[in-house]
């Protein structure tokens, strides 16, 4: 069953900055004027990176058919990697009339017999929520009979946005998995990484550095994650939220339940990566750990500066405008500044109030409506490069300036120290590519 009270509570999350000023909670989507994914997608994004669990979507084909194997969330799991696989009960007319529980039970039995996963996540969808399938009961029976965790995620698309779905996924993990297992030994500097899905290996850019400092990653939600680890997540000493507002409720509840404090960090760019490491070690307050961290930060920064030197020469004096969403409105700005680019303005159209406040500390101009303001700002400030989602490509071509697509579908990691070099490579390549000036030229039969 969809838990309406939980959803209301999640939308009114006290740890969200906007809920301090706004009377109403997060808005419902507007018909005819809505973009962005649904709650199911949010849950899927948050949990699919658990490669040792099977993710079974209980619904018709659209929910999964169009969304499986779409995100490059990498894993080091050596068994069968379930992250790029799609499991779906493929509910049909027959099931809608007679109920889908039997099919769900059969699907669970099939998966356990053929795939032997460490756990199964079962995702409720709009249709199976509406026809009133008793998913909880079927899954409870299966869990008892097969002896592996079967976690029901009550996040059908129509309850709200992607963000809400990711919160609901966090709740499901908290209730069904966290604290269900005790590790052999508890590390004094154990942390959980919350909200990094290891897209293009972002997490691997900084995790080895943390380990060199002497920090142990107990569990992740959910980049390169394992079910057994998340079951032990309550033994970590600190929760580290990586660029994700949506899982703040989970962290607040873990603080209440298990007395684990949390910090919120970003690993984009040199300064933010160094600051993130400092926030983590400062939270432990161990002098030796802090000293070790400073030494490693200095070493990593020096190595990076050496590698970035040729790019600094090429990028000197270049001006950029950034148009992206959420925390990227400031985190990528900060990364760009680290490689020597002047960021003239950043779009805050899709940013939270907290993100806007942070963005203002990095970038002099923040703007709300890219369609009108972007072209004007490009002219006024003689901007050299636009970094945005694919939709803005035409603006760049019209203005004959370089363009870099900063979408989540990106193919290389821009995370941490190592990723910064990738960003520098892409920006340099775009700035030096003649195509942006060439492609928009007028045809021989047109008046110039």
């Amino acid at each position, binding site marked *: 069953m969809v838990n309406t009270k939980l959803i209301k509570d999640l939308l009114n999350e006290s740890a969200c900055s906007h809920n301090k000023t706004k009377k109403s909670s997060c808005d419902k989507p507007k018909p005819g004027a809505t973009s962005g994914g649904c709650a199911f997608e949010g849950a899927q994004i948050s949990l699919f990176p658990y490669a040792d669990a099977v993710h079974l979507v209980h619904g018709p084909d659209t929910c999964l058919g169009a969304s499986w194997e779409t995100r490059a969330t990498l894993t080091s799991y050596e068994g069968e990697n379930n992250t790029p696989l799609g499991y779906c009960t493929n*509910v049909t007319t027959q099931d809608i009339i007679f109920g889908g529980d039997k099919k769900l039970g059969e699907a669970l039995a099939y998966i356990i017999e053929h795939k032997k996963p460490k756990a199964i996540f079962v995702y409720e969808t709009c249709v199976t929520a509406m026809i009133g399938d008793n998913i909880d009961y079927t899954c409870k029976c299966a869990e008892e009979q097969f002896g592996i965790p079967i976690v029901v995620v009550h996040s059908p698309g129509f309850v709200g946005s992607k963000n809400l779905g990711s919160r609901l996924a966090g709740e499901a993990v908290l209730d069904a998995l966290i604290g269900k297992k005790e590790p052999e030994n508890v590390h004094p500097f154990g942390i959980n990484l919350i909200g990094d899905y290891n897209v293009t290996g972002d997490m691997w850019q900084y995790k080895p550095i943390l380990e060199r400092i002497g920090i142990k990653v107990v569990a992740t939600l959910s980049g390169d994650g394992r079910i057994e680890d998340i079951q032990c997540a309550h033994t970590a000493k600190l929760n580290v939220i990586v660029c994700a507002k949506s899982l703040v409720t989970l962290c607040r509840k873990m603080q209440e339940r298990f007395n684990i404090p949390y910090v919120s960090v970003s690993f984009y760019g040199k300064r933010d990566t160094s600051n993130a490491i400092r926030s983590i070690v400062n939270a432990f307050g161990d002098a030796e750990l802090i000293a070790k961290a400073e030494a490693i930060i200095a070493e990593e920064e020096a190595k990076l500066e050496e590698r970035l030197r040729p790019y600094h020469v090429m990028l000197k004096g270049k001006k950029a405008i950034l148009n992206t969403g959420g925390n990227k409105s400031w985190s990528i700005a900060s990364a760009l500044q680290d490689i020597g680019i002047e960021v003239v303005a950043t779009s805050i159209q899709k940013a939270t109030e907290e993100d806007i406040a942070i963005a203002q500390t990095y970038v002099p101009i923040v703007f709300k409506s890219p369609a009108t303001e972007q072209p004007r700002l490009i002219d006024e400030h003689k901007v050299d490069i636009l970094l945005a989602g694919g939709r803005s490509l035409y603006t760049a071509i019209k203005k004959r300036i370089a363009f870099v697509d900063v979408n989540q579908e990106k193919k290389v990691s821009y995370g941490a120290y190592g990723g910064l070099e990738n960003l520098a490579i892409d920006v340099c390549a775009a700035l030096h590519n003649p195509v942006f000036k060439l492609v928009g030229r007028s045809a021989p039969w047109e008046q110039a």
Partner: protein
Amino acid sequence: MGASLNLKSFKATTLKPLHINPLKLSQPMGATLAFLGIKNCMPLMHGAQGCASFTKVLFTRHFNDPIAIQTTAVNDITAVIDGGEKGISEAIENITKKVTPDLVGLFTTGMTETKGDDIKGATLLLKEKQKMVYVHTPDFEGGLESGWSLSVQAIISQLIAPTTECKHDKVLLIPNVNLSPIEVEKLKEALELFDFDVLALPDLSDSLDGHLGVKQGALSSGGISVADIEKLGNAGLIISIGHSVKKCGELFKEKFAQSTHLHFDSLMGLEACDAFYAKIIEYTGSKSVPNTVKRWRARLQDVLLDTHFVIGKSNIVIADEPDSVYAMSKALQEVGANIKAFIAQRSPIQEHFTCDIAVGDFEDVEYALDGAQMLIANFHGERIAHKHHKALIIRGFPNYEQVGIGLRHNILYEGSCHFLCEVNNLLGHH
């Protein structure tokens, strides 16, 4: 609650109770593409916001171009208390605040069909405000092909004005969803060689062909205009390509009895193309065809002979939408290939296959790869083709890996040459 379910007993079931790595795409997605083939149209998906979002992202990545689509964003409250008309009218109001569509294509999803919304009523109520076409496309039935076909049928019955006039040289071309934008254009050009005046419905050839537009539109950027659709009634010849759209042609013929309907299941390979030109010649009464057609036929004859050495000894697994698999398997069998075919959903075309065929998912496809040299499938085939070291040709939706998908020409004599050569060359290198 009664006695505990005994799930272990379910093991006895022979039929696989789930899809593992689905091949199937949904009906609403097919409807979306159909409406994108109409100029200045806004596809409006009646469902939760995610249905439209997943669809938009998939087609945006597939075509590398912006995709116009909106959603009625049904939520948990309106799902219960609204019969559809409130959400739909609100959506129309919000859409028309920003843009002025010539047409809104309204289509349902699994959720709104489960609750049984009256979309016809909602469309009638909004008649004065916005021109609309409505169509029922639940995603628990059919698939990409039927969603496209049902939308075309809805457009034919709801938009085309009644007439008894008949222009013998006016052709309505109805392509199936699998034809690429450039294939639709090539087909139009092929018919124009016979002095036909050709309109395609839907027409993706100038909306999703990947052209650099003047501006970033919120509506579909090209396609057949609504005014042209309304005047289609006087088309003398209806040509449907692909079994999934046969019904569209039949519906037109029912409505406008003065017209002639020619149907072709496929336009790939020598036999299929010969059948096409035979019927066209018969209709026009001409004795011959333009020279370019003759030259391309001769080239295809040569390609058939050149490729039969390699393809003739090969085992190929094809997985895609039924009409697409049918066309490719027929063309490859002409040069002796041994084909195992998997289709995304059941289709009447199944009976006409002359090779091994099954409805399946990518798990089934993977098992079938044993002993095959090549896999032809959508982007999801890539991982398994690499895993089992098979040659891969990407066809169908989605294709996230490659560019120029809208420009791929694999039909008629010319396109068949390109297709067979591509298969041959890849097999030879593998």
